[in-house]
C-alpha cells in the first residue's frame, strides 16, 4: 500500500467530484455533502462517461452521459451488474485527501 496525498479537500467542492491522475491511473474523487470522501475509477463502465462530472446525492452517483447509477461506497451499480473499482481514501488531520493504493 502506498499513500498519496491528493491535496486539500477544499479543492473538491461539496457535492462534486474531481479527477486526479495517480500513477498513470485516472481516479475520480468525490466530496459528499455529508462530509465523506470517496474515490472510484474515473470512467463509467457503460460508455466511458466522465463520472466526476456526475450528479451526487448521498453516496449515489449518476453518470452524466446516460444516467447509470452507482453507490460510491461499494462501487456497486444500482442497475445492471457492472460495478466500479473503488479506492480507499481518508482525510488526514489537516483536511488533506489521502489515497491508499
Amino acid at each position, binding site marked *: 500500500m502506498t499513500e498519496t496525498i*491528493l491535496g486539500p479537500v477544499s479543492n473538491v467542492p461539496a457535492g*462534486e467530484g*474531481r479527477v486526479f491522475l495517480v500513477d498513470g491511473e485516472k481516479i475520480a474523487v468525490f466530496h459528499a455533502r455529508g462530509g465523506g470522501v470517496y474515490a472510484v475509477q474515473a470512467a463509467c463502465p457503460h460508455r466511458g*462517461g466522465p463520472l466526476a462530472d456526475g450528479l451526487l*446525492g448521498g453516496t*449515489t452517483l449518476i453518470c452524466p452521459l446516460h444516467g447509470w447509477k452507482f453507490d460510491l461506497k461499494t462501487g456497486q451499480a444500482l442497475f445492471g451488474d457492472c460495478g466500479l473499482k473503488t479506492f480507499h481514501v481518508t482525510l488526514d488531520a489537516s483536511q488533506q485527501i489521502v489515497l491508499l493504493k
Partner: protein
Amino acid sequence: MEKQKLVVIGNGMAGARTVEEILARGGAEQFDITMFGEEPTGNYNRILLSNVLNGSYQEDEIFLNPLEWYEENNIRLLAGKRASGLLRRAKLAYGEDGQPVPYDKLIIATGSRAFIPPMEGTTMVDGTLKPGVFVFRSLEDCRNIADWAKGKHSAAVIGGGLLGLEAARGLQNFGLEVHIVHLGGHLMPQQLDTGAGAILKTSMENLGIKVHLKKNTSAIIGPDRVLGLRFADGGTLECDMVIISAGIKANWEIAAGCGLTVERGIVVDDQMRCPDDPSIYAVGECAQHRGHVYGLVAPLWEQAKVLADHITGKNTRSAYHGSKVATKLKVMGVEVASMGIVEPQTPEDEVVQFSEPKRGTYKKLIVRDGRLVGGILLGDISKAAYLIQAFDRNTPLPEERLHLLFDIGDPPKQVTFAEMGASTQVCNCNGVSKGAIVACVNAGKRNAKAVMDATRAGMGCGSCKSMVAEIVEWACGGETEEDPSVHYYVPGVPLTKPELIRAILERNLKSVSAVFDLLAGGKEDAASKPGLASLLKTLWKGEYEDEKDARFINERVHANIQKDGTFSVVPQIPGGITSPAQLRRIAFVAEKYHVPLVKLTGGQRIDLLGIRKDDLPKVWHDLDMPSGYAYGKSYRTCKSCVGSDFCRFGLGDSITLALKIENEFQGFDSPHKLKLATAGCPRNCSEAMVKDLGAVAVEGGKWEIYIGGAAGSSVRKGDILCSADSHEEVLKLMGRFIQYYRENAKYLERTHGFVQRLGIEKIRAIVVEDSEGIAERLDREIAESKAAYKDPWKDAWLPENDNQFASVLPILQ
C-alpha cells in the same frame, strides 16, 4: 433396439414435410423409412406450379427434396410407384406391382386430385381425358399444358377459384386468349364476398382475361380434340384447350379399401391418427380433421409437426386443433388476401369496409368480440401481414378500426402487449426489450417508475415512457402499486409542485441543500437536484443561492457534454442573424482551439463541437459573445425566417420579433427546454407551428401565437393560443404562458405534454382572459426574471471555482 419400420404413402408436400419433421426429432434412430411416390421425382413445391406455367420459375427451381436428399437420409424412395392397397392385420402395404412392404407405423399422405365435374365429352372411350383437356395438379400436367398451348389461339379455364385464376394468368404467357368459365356468381367464392368478387372480375378483365360467370358447362365439344364448350343455357364458346380447375377431391381410396373411416377425407384425431388403427396416421389434403379437409399448405405444416411429435414419442401430448385459413392470391397485377369467413354470421358481427372500385381496391373485415374472424383485402394488401397475424393468433384489435385498414398518420401501433414479442425493443435509446420490462415486473417492481429506474427504459429521450407504463400495467395484470412519487415535482421531496412552491416561499428556502434539509428530512437525492435548482431559480431569480453540485454538468460549465466528455459551445445568434465580424471571431476560435467539428444547428446557430472542458473559459473569452444556452433546461433560442425585410411574401417583421423575444427570455430556467420561432407568413418556413412557442404573421398586421408544438421525439403541431396585434402583445402573452408553464409543469415535462395535459382552453382562459386573476403577477415575475439575467459566459473572467473547468487536478505534494 431394433428400428421400427415406417412406411409413408405419398411423396408430396405433406409426406415429405412430415418425414422432415420426424428426422428433426431424431426419427432416423427410431425408424427405417420407406416412401411410396407416384411421381418419378423427388418432392416439389406444388404451390409454385402456376409460376412454372407462367414462366417465372424453371422446373428445377421448385424442388424441395431432390432425389439425393432421400439417399442422404437413408430413406428408401419407391419413386414412380403408386401404393395400391393395405393389409392391416398383417401390417403390409402393397405397391401396384404386388410387392408387399411391411410396416410398424404407416402414414397416409396421398393428397388430393382435381375434381372433374360431370360434363359430356370430357373423356375419350378409353377413359383418358380428351386431347386438349387438362387438369392442373402436377409438374407433368404443367408440361403437357405448355406443349399443347404452342400455336393455339384460345383456352378456357373451368373454375374461377384461386388455382383457376392462377392458371388463367399463366396461360396468357403463351399468347392465348384466355377465358374463365365459372359456375358461381363471383370469382374466388371461398375467399371473397360478392363485392370483392365483382372488383376482382374487373381487375382480371383489365389484364385481358375474359370472365364468364354463372356458366354451367354441360359439354366439351370436339370429336377427337377440344373445339369448344357448350353451356347449359345453350350458348357455346370456341377454344383450343380446357383446363379443369373446379376444386379438389381427397385421395382416400387406399384408406377406404382397408376399412378405415372415410368421409370427405380420411378421418383423423388430434394426433393425426386414424381412430380405427393406432398404427396408421394420415396428414395433408387427404386427411379430415374435425370435419375439415384443408387444401392449403399452412395447415399441413402444423399437422406434420404434431404427427412427428407423436410418432417419435417426443411429445405424445402434442395436439392439432385445426387451422385458421388465410390465403394470398399470387397473380401478377392483382393482389388478394383473404382470411376466415367472408360474410358476417351473427347480428353482432361487426363489418368494417372500404370500397374503391375504380382503383380496384376493396377491404373488408369481420370483427367478433373485438377479434378478427374474417377479412378480405383486394388491390392494396399492405396490411395483410399484420391482419393475418391478428386473425391467426386471435389477438384483440385496437379500438380505432380505421388503422386496421390503412396506415394513417401515426406509425402503426402495437395491437396488444400480449402479442408483442419478448425481444421487441421498447426503449430504443437504452435498448430495453418488452421481455426485460416484464421480467422486472415479475421480480417485484410493481409500478412504472420502479421499472424505469431499474431497467432505464424510458430514461433516454423519454418518448417511450407511456408505452413502458402501459406494459408495466399489463404485466401487473392491471394491478400496479401506485408510486406516490409520480405526483411529486421531483421524486426526492414528497410534495406536489404547488405544495413545494408554497413551502419554499414560506420557509424562505433559497438553495437546494436547504430544501433537502427542511423538506426531505435531510436526505439528498441526486436525481432531484436539477429540478429543484431550476425551480428555485425561477422563484427567487437573483436571490437564488446557486450550488454547482445541484446542477447537471451542462449547467455547471455552461456547455453541452458530448459522448467523449468534451463539450459543444453555441454562442447566442438570435433569429439566426449574424454578421461578418461574428463569423470571423467564430472562425478564429475554431482554428485556435482546433475545434474538430463546426456545424450549423437546427436552431439557426453555429455549434463548435469537441471542445475540452479546460478550454471552455478561454473559448468564451475569445468569442466575446453571450451564451446561447444550447445546453440547458431553459429558454434556448428563437429562430426566424427572413420576414418582411427581404421576402416578397413576408407579412410581418419576424426578425425583429425574434430578437425581442430572445432579449426578453434569454437564460430563463424552465422545466424543460423552450425552443421558439417566428414566421413572417403562414408558409411557416421557420417551423414556428411546431415549436414550444411560435408566432406566425398573418394578413392584417396580426400574429398568431402557437404553443405546445413539438418536432423532436414527439411531433405535434402547436395549438393557437390567440392572435396578437403587435410585437409587444406577442411578448406579453408568450411571457405569461412561459411563466405559467414554469410554475405548473412537472420537471422535464415539455410544453406539448403540458398543453395536452391541461388543455388549450384552460390555458387560454388563464393566460389570455385572466380567469384566475394572476396575469399581472405572471407579467411581474417575467420582468423580474428578465432583470436577473446574467450571461453565464462572463465566468470566463470570474470563475466561481478555480478548478471548475480542470479535467484533471494536479497532485500537490
